[in-house]
């Protein structure tokens, strides 16, 4: 019964977007845009950096939510694309700094826009390869194959000594953008905010489009979809590629923010973390992954300040939230606002 009402809430919320919600949305974005100013005024500059990371993880979690939440594809290798995006930016930066070329063919760049575009394209291409093979399976085999691909990439980058191997790749400075001082923390925060909002709007368009209806239909009943003439594989693959591109965008933003990329970005624990963000926030909801990313990072930061064994307490809290809210923070928020 509870699951039924939750489903009702979910299907209602997924598509409906009345005027009042748009107003709330605009206000929320405006408040987020003022975070750096507030942080400076309160002499808490680290808040801007924290918020930047939240936004970047939010993009990654939103991209995973498209396939996990809406599409019902339980992938355990999403961090692969996050890491690939990071490495694209890192490698391009290194070649730019060394005035060399990738495979002696592709020159490097320290232009953020070019690097992000490259990350998105290569992330999409990687997802196309991994997806085209793994989406031939379903359920547990699908989980294992996506995990296996992510681990293969992890060990590939561990063994790539040219690009730092195990130690990862350091960047001396952040990438630049024409006309904007992207090396400034506040400007970079605003760039990340713009891209996160952009990805949110893209996701919103996708899930209420005919493509989204098919994707969600495949999650609910694949036999039914085949019986009305849908070839499941193609639609799932396109969703998988879009999700891979989104995770790569987030990975590149994160690498640029930290000026560091390492194989840890694509470790299976990172895939698990992204999954937790989605489930904690509310899988198959528009804003859930953003809430999940913020909550996860806030908990990590707060708990790590208290104890070395913070992961233990994090686990307990996550368990409690997921078990009691049945639908994540997003469902909790909806109930609180009486919807």
């Amino acid at each position, binding site marked *: 019964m509870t699951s039924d009402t939750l489903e009702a809430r979910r299907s209602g919320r997924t598509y409906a977007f009345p005027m009042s919600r748009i107003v709330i949305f605009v206000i929320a974005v405006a408040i987020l845009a003022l975070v750096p100013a507030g942080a400076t005024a309160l002499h808490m500059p680290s808040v801007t950096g924290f918020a930047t990371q939240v936004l970047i993880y939010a993009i990654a979690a939103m991209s995973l939510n498209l396939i996990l939440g809406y599409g019902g594809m339980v992938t355990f290798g999403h961090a692969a694309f996050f890491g690939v995006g990071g490495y694209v930016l890192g490698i391009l930066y290194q070649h730019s700094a060394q005035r060399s070329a990738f495979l002696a063919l592709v020159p490097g760049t320290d232009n953020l826009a070019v690097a992000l575009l490259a990350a998105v394209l290569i992330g999409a291409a990687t997802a196309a390869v991994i997806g085209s093979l793994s989406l031939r399976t379903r359920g547990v085999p699908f989980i294992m194959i996506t995990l296996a691909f992510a681990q293969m990439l992890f060990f590939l980058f561990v063994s790539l000594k040219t690009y730092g191997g195990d130690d990862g790749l350091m960047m001396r400075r952040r990438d630049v953008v024409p006309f904007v001082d992207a090396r400034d923390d506040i400007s970079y925060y605003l760039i990340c905010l713009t891209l996160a909002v952009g990805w949110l709007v893209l996701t919103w*368009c996708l899930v*209420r*489009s005919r*493509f989204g209806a098919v994707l*969600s239909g495949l999650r609910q*009943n694949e*036999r039914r979809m085949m019986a*009305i003439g849908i070839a499941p594989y193609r*639609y799932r693959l396109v969703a998988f590629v879009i999700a891979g591109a989104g995770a790569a965008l987030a990975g590149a933003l994160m690498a640029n923010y930290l000026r560091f990329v390492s194989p840890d970005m694509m470790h299976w624990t990172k895939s698990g973390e992204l999954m937790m963000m989605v489930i904690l926030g509310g899988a198959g909801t528009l804003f859930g992954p953003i809430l999940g990313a913020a909550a996860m990072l806030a908990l990590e930061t707060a708990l790590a300040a208290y104890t070395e064994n913070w992961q233990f307490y994090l686990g307990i809290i996550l368990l409690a939230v997921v078990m009691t809210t049945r639908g994540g923070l997003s469902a909790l928020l909806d109930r609180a606002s009486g919807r």
Partner: protein
Amino acid sequence: MTSPMLELRGVCKRFGGLTATDDVSLAISPGELHAIIGPNGAGKTTLLNQVAGELRHDAGAILLDGHEIGTLPPWERVGRGLARTFQITQLLPDETVLDNVTLAVQVQRGHSFRFFADARSDPDAHAQATQFLQDVGLAASASVRVADLAHGERKQLELAVALATRPSLLLLDEPMAGLSFVESQHMVALLRRLKGRVTMVLVEHDMDAVFALADRISVLVYGRVMATGSSDDVRANPAVRTAYLGEDGD
């Protein structure tokens, strides 16, 4: 003599040592309502699944309107004009009744790689879907979520969704199963209205419904067609009486 809408030529299907479909040949004319009856485990649903493409037959040929469809995946067979309903209803539980049908209407009109326009602001598709719901008598429940729908209504919705793909051949897998007497009567009336507009293959245990609706009946026993003919022929056939009707005890 018009060419058959559906033709099966020596269709065989084996699961290990079990022969589920044994050299089945059938020809069903356009507009015909052809019932397939037989005891439980006779392979009726298995045969339907092979025609629909969920199962691949081992030998033989399946022709829809003169074209071989036996090698096509299920969704391409739908594109060729084949639709089916399921014995155990297969619907989208999170969506409303109307959305279930609208989606089928939209898929029928072309591919769904449309990423930006709102799928629900498609008045034309809604209008068509509403029409199909009216046809099956479900228009009043258009905005009800499928998960909240009663069993009988789900059976009606199955039919509406199948019709929304605008089929020339409709495979009906036990549409009366689990229906009350009244609901069953309603479904019979519904199928009778469809007769002639769509060619139908009806797998059904409800003999009253079968004899009321079918132009011709095939009796399937152990995967083999034991007899094909009008309802009177089949009722009179002694082998059928022993193998099937007699066992039913009526």
